[in-house]
């Protein structure tokens, strides 16, 4: 009798779980279908008037580095290639205090004058968002963006972001650029990454943005109005999905995220082994 009751309860519980899971799945599919129906271009539909050099604000770029010696030269070349007055680029490379590899690599590298190195003090957690939070109080830019070490943003991305912010209402606190995998043909894993990124950054996120819905931000190439980012106290250092978390916190605070149709090339891992 007791066993029969337990089985019946288990059956009810499983049924409830199936129904809830089905509703969640249906919601996600509906959201994706809705995003597909939106007309989302990969470039601005028409050329946006861009301010002249002397009207551009200082732009802060934060790049957390951890044992990224292999891509350092590429990163610096990408920062140099950004089409923005060098006097107004405020690039901050953040390294950990015990990362001798990066410290040595940076010491041996002739950095452009607009790039500075910040050493995060020892402490926990040793996460990317913590490194970002170390750099944020030192940011001088009206806008702040984040890149990963292997990122190569399109050269006009900062100018496009400034122009888009200028046209957007003040409650648009963030622009999410498109992350694009640039080593698609390496193997099957990088191809899957390409499919995943294209779906997320070219369809779903722009669709969510068009619908004024909360956008789970990507880990890089999100551009912020600095005062808003500071008012939200930056990133959650203890959160492994601090990017998506920040997107939700922006929405809860009443801010919107717009799509920035500008590509940032990223390198996908080609194996399951840590780099």
């Amino acid at each position, binding site marked *: 009798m007791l066993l029969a009751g337990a089985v019946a309860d288990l059956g009810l519980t499983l049924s409830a779980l199936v129904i809830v899971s089905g509703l969640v799945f249906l919601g996600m599919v509906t959201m994706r279908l809705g995003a597909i129906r939106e007309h989302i271009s990969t470039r601005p539909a028409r050329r946006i008037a861009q301010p002249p050099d002397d009207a551009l604000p200082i732009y802060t770029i934060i790049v957390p580095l951890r044992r990224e010696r292999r891509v350092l030269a590429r990163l610096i070349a990408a920062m140099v290639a950004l089409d923005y007055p060098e006097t107004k680029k405020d690039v901050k490379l953040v390294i950990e205090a015990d990362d001798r590899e990066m410290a040595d690599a940076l010491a041996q590298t002739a950095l452009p004058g607009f790039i500075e190195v910040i050493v995060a003090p*020892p402490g926990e957690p040793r996460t990317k968002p913590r490194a970002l939070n170390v750099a944020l109080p030192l940011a001088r830019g009206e806008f702040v963006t984040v890149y990963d070490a292997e990122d190569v943003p399109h050269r006009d991305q900062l100018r496009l972001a400034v122009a888009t912010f200028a046209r957007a209402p003040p409650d648009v606190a963030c622009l999410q650029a498109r992350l694009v995998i640039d080593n698609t043909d390496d193997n099957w894993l990088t191809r899957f990454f390409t499919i995943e990124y294209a779906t997320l950054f070219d369809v779903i996120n722009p669709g969510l943005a068009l619908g004024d819905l909360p956008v789970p931000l990507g880990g890089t190439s999100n551009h912020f109005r600095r005062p808003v980012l500071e008012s939200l106290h930056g990133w959650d250092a203890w959160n492994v999905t601090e990017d998506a978390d920040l997107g939700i916190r922006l929405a809860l605070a009443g801010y919107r995220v717009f799509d920035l149709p500008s590509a940032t090339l990223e390198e996908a891992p080609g194996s399951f082994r840590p780099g």
Partner: protein
Amino acid sequence: MTIQGQAIGTVAAANPVLPIEIAFLQNHGVGADLLRRAAEAARRSGSFADEALLKLGLVDEAFFYQALAAEIELPFLGSDVPVGPAARFPYSLRLGLAPLAATVSRLRPSARKSFGSSKPPGASPTGSRSRRRRRCAVRSFASTEPQSPRRRRTDLPMPIRAGPIATAARRLKSCAALLSAACFSPAPSPISA
């Protein structure tokens, strides 16, 4: 501190040849052509000329601040800056002024002596340096360079929880003209804020 742009802009307007924030480098061996290049880049981008000079890599940062310290007769502490316990992150960095440790007083005589020898020949455009020093009430400043402390920051005391002393010097540098002006003016120094 809003004095930076106002003061430099006012003084620079009075000198159409070279902006005041970099003109002093001529006294330290930097060619006028290079300074004019920085001034032109700054004009085009709407920046300060010293920022253009450094960000374009036209002069070495350590040299710039060393020359500045010599110009305004402040000791230059180089990259080994003993920050005092009252320094706070990030406020000291944002303000550009950080209290130094007590040990700095022991550094001053040698530092001042070493920079005394780098004083350029010829009179200052604003008058006698010795007279300026006598009248100047701002005695407890020292200058440093931003980048090196940034790279070293882990040995800073905990109140500076992260980063660099860094922009301290940048702001101090921006105050240079005001510091000099304050030496001759009976009016209260505008940097008291």
